[in-house]
């Protein structure tokens, strides 16, 4: 609306800020999240105030949150990365094998290896998508099969058990700092870094430009290939990080680690307001969407809904949020047209 009027808005900055906040998707999803937490806590106070209530509330979404951050950055460029679940599984297994082969490996080094390994797998996706000029959906569907297959044939019937990994690593999964779980802190630090980059840095803004209109971005002289490549490397390294965290959190890595997580990550991003056709949405939204998905899954049994219905609720949420987006955008368009006609 403000683009149509040349003079600054008459509304005071405070009210504009308030209006912006009321219309923001992130805040809407956050309110739903708080309502879910409140309703569940009223039903059963252990959900929040129990022995592990607060810890689980923060700890369980951490892994999906990181995946959703990576996924959102890819979706913003009008692509999608379906291979993240397989990358997560493969990296989690690699983590276990590193500890089995070299029990004394420093934990920091393992995290770096996980990031680098995930980034390498993401680079493969990025090279194929960006240079091959083929749709990401197909390529990452293919690499999803390939990475999962490599993982399963490498692991065979072996699995990594808690006894294979050092205590200093496993304790990260439950360790807390000022009563906040360490893994959640890691996730939030990653979220803030990526979110800040996408919000302010040139590279980040260019991802939005590419997603809004790839051809226009190319004509404008943006380095589309390189940016898309970078987005896939980011998504891969996030999945790698999430893989290491999965190993630390659960202690065992079985063959179904990360199975079907890719769709949850896409779902989290969509619920959080990242448009599936690129160009809009934030990683904050995707992160809150991830928290909402995980928390609803944990809240349903407490609220007396059998946990078999979780997936149904997730599906309804995804559809509800895209329908809502559509309704809001139609209303916004109508208002803009009205404003133009009245001007």
């Amino acid at each position, binding site marked *: 609306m403000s683009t149509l009027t040349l003079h600054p808005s008459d509304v005071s900055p405070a009210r504009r800020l308030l209006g912006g906040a009321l219309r923001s998707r992130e805040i809407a999803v956050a309110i739903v999240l708080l309502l879910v937490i409140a309703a569940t806590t009223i039903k059963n106070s252990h959900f929040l105030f129990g022995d592990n209530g607060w810890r689980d509330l923060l700890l369980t979404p951490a892994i999906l949150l990181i995946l959703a951050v990576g996924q959102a950055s890819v979706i913003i460029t009008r692509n999608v990365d379906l291979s993240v679940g397989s990358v997560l599984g493969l990296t989690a297994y690699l983590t276990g094998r590193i500890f089995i082969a070299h029990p004394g490996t420093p934990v920091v080094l393992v995290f770096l290896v996980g990031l680098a390994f995930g980034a390498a797998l993401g680079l493969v996706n990025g090279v194929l998508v960006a240079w091959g000029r083929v749709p990401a959906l197909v390529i990452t569907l293919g690499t*999803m*099969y390939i990475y999962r297959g490599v993982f399963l*044939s490498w692991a065979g019937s072996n699995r990594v058990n808690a006894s294979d990994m050092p205590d200093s690593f496993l304790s990260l999964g439950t360790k807390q700092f000022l009563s906040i779980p360490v893994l959640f802190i890691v996730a939030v630090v990653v979220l803030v870094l990526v979110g800040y980059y996408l919000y302010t840095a040139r590279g980040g803004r260019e991802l939005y430009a590419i997603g809004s209109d790839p051809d226009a971005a190319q004509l404008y002289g943006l380095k589309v290939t390189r940016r898309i490549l970078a987005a896939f490397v980011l998504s891969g390294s996030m999945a790698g990080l999430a893989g290491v965290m999965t190993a630390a959190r659960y202690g065992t890595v079985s063959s179904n680690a990360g199975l079907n997580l890719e769709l949850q990550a896409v779902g989290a991003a969509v619920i959080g307001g990242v448009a599936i056709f690129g160009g809009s949405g934030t990683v904050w939204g995707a992160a809150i969407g991830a928290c909402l998905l995980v928390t609803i899954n944990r809240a349903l049994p407490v609220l007396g809904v059998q946990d*078999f219905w979780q997936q149904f609720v997730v599906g309804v*949420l995804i559809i509800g949020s895209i329908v809502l987006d559509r309704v809001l955008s139609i209303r916004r368009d109508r208002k803009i047209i009205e404003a133009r006609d009245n001007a």
Partner: protein
Amino acid sequence: MTSATVTASAPAGRTYRAYSHSWWRRTLLTREVAIIALLVLVFGWASANVANFKSPLTVYFLSLDNAEIMLIALPMALVIITGEIDLSVASVVGLSSVMVGILHQDAGFSIPLAGLIAILVGIIAGALNGFLIAYVGLPSLAVTIGTMAAYRGLAVGLLGTTAKTDFPVKWTDLSTQHIGSTRFPLIVIPIVVLVAVFVWLLHFSTFGRGVFEIGLNDEAAHFSGVNVARTKFILFVLTAAISAFAGIYITLRSGNARGDNATGDELKVIAAVLLGGVSIFGGRGALHGVIAGVLLIGVIQSAMRLQNETVNVINIVIGALLVLSVMSTSILTWLSKQRARRAGLGTLRRRQAVATSNPER
């Protein structure tokens, strides 16, 4: 290649060069024929080198195991040609399987009646997809990711972790029976009928021309009199109805109705369709390629299984095939561009090349 070379960044469209080749080059040098040739090669190689591959049981199990993929791939090809996608098919399979189980065993309906209701449920599920995509105008990728979770959740929610396994032997036997004394199972009959129907629908009817037109340019399709929304709606309903039929089939074949039946099959179907030469951008594809794509995956699977390869290695091969098949279009386009540039064929082409290399001019 006869195909219009369409890439993500620059839709080159049909060039006159595409018609400068003789008709036999245009019919034989296509992706569909390449996939069929590959299928024949793999089949020939497997018959010669893989022990037991030549036995009649191979064809029998090949048909039994890939029937649901083949059935769903037919309407899915049409959906993808319009430029949309349906990720919810395997969830509809699961939902229909659960419906048959519950209606037959808890409500006491006969199998045909339960099956009919399951197909109706499938049609409703498809109508919801189609309504949201065709009439509300939401992106099909997002809608069907949502309904994939929702329909699967409904299936799992209705049955929980239990399974209905007590089906009349008459019906479970029917699903695995041979046709007379041939090596083909009975399920081949509906497949052949549906293949004929879909070949007619896509390649020989006005509806099918509309499907291609929508995929190439839906606005142009609208202005040339194609009812874009209705076409898409019908396709999504058809896809879900056939998925529901596939759900009845796998319930009877495996003898159990479970919420997680056919999990992950949507990706197998899409992989087969794309391998068969249907463009994910829409507007291009042919059913003989799709059928060859499904069979190619099936033959590779059964040959590798007979050689005692694990399902993991098979997955790697299928994934690599999928990536290679889409990359091949890009590589061929790039090669022919390079060749054209070197030969300096036609000023138009050179001007195009200049325009893409310095876009600001």
